[in-house]
């Protein structure tokens, strides 16, 4: 396991940079992760996606399917990749503090 320094706090993440204890998640962590994922500025659109993901996960215990994410946020897939260049799973879910999605490889 490795650690990411978030304003001095050591946050444990797995090899892929996903947070190990989702309970530790907070907005500062997002900002820090964002930089690592190539997101320079966190806009409202970013937050919309992040909040949607967290809400969905809290309710259903799983990450939404991408199609659902697009539908509910109103962003098409292209736009999601603009917001999160490493994609919804590697990018958005990671920032939202979700467990690694189970979509297949």
């Amino acid at each position, binding site marked *: 396991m490795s650690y990411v320094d978030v304003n001095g706090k050591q946050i444990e993440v*797995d*090899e*892929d940079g*996903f947070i190990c204890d989702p309970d530790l998640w907070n907005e500062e962590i997002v900002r820090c992760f964002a930089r690592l994922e*190539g997101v320079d500025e966190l806009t409202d659109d970013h937050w919309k996606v992040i909040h949607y993901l967290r809400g969905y996960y809290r309710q259903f215990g*799983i990450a939404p*399917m*991408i*199609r659902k994410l*697009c539908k509910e946020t109103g962003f098409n*897939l*292209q736009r999601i*990749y603009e917001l999160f*260049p*490493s*994609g*919804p*799973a*590697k990018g958005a879910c990671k920032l939202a503090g979700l467990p*690694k*999605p*189970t*979509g*297949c*490889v």
Partner: protein
Amino acid sequence: MDDRETPLLDELEEGDWPSFVAELKRAAEKSAMSADLLRQIERSYADNTGHWKRGGIVGVRGYGGGVVGRYSAMPEEFPGVKEFHTLRVNEPAGFYYTTEKLRELCDVWDKYGSGLLNLHGSTGDIILLGTTTENLQPCFDALGEIGFDLGGSGSAMRTLSCCVGQSRCEHACIDTMDVTHDLTMNFQMEIHRPAFPYKFKIKVSGCPNDCAAASARSDLAIIGVWRDAIEIDQQGVAEYVDEGFDLFNRVIRRCPTWALDWDAEEKRLKLTSEDCVHCMHCINEMPKALRVGQERGAAVLIGGKAPVVKGAMIGWVLVPFMRLEPPYQELKDLIVQVTEFWAEHGKNRERLAELIDRLGMPAFLEGIGVEPCPQMVDAPRSNPYLFWREEEVKHA
């Protein structure tokens, strides 16, 4: 690297079949990653188990897939494979290469990766086996320079592949390579940015011999077929017979529908064409005399897959015959219809076949707007559990 480090693997350098261990060693000479790979594999052989971690979500910017992340479970012992991701590189249709192109690929891979690769992965990709997270992006960029893009991974449309088709086969009813390339270009978005419930595979075979193994390994298989009569060169058949070819036992008796008969007096092979189910057997046996018909196109089969979760499937006939000419619009529309329906109704990690199994084929057909036809089934239903739409019953 010291030879005695890998006594178990060394045994696999013996024997006549080409040795992957020899290849590992060849790569290990140039690459520290490969050297550690060799050591870790040796350890697996000793421990009787793999030493990779689960998980691994890494990639390149702008794509959601194309890379399979992999980390060693013993990074201290084998630091070279601490990160050992594969890049799935989309092969050219038909697996043809110029040596020039292959050499360029080798150069890039020696620079950024382990120098080990699979030609090919069983989906069809060139599998570049092992690089670090850091090298992913530069490697991808370098691949782009020489014209190689990534293939699919994750819940995406996967890299397509096909049989050799018209490029070298007399049986091909469709231009498999062109269909494959055209669809690949058309569905770049779906290949690179996973947005489906699960993986979606397409493979293309030129005739029912199915040399691309499409019907077992693709959610949507495109298989060439004809619908007029087999072309018979009677002269050619007579030659086979004159040369002592056992026509009865090798062909007539083995035609699944007894569509063929030999008129010994007239020396004519008689075909009852309406009985022919295009199995290819007679044509395979007498390629000099028999030939697929002239009205050519393809069937589309859906649902082929491996065992997990609901069991393995061999593709089911969805469209028994479709003409296939560029730009293959009808086919593309169908693929969009099918994937849209699946994306809309499928659950996470539910393959197309499993969705259809869950909702029922009639509901699926209605959903994608395809008319039922008898070719879709081996036989009609035997249980009396029929559903009726309200309109149908009211009018009665």
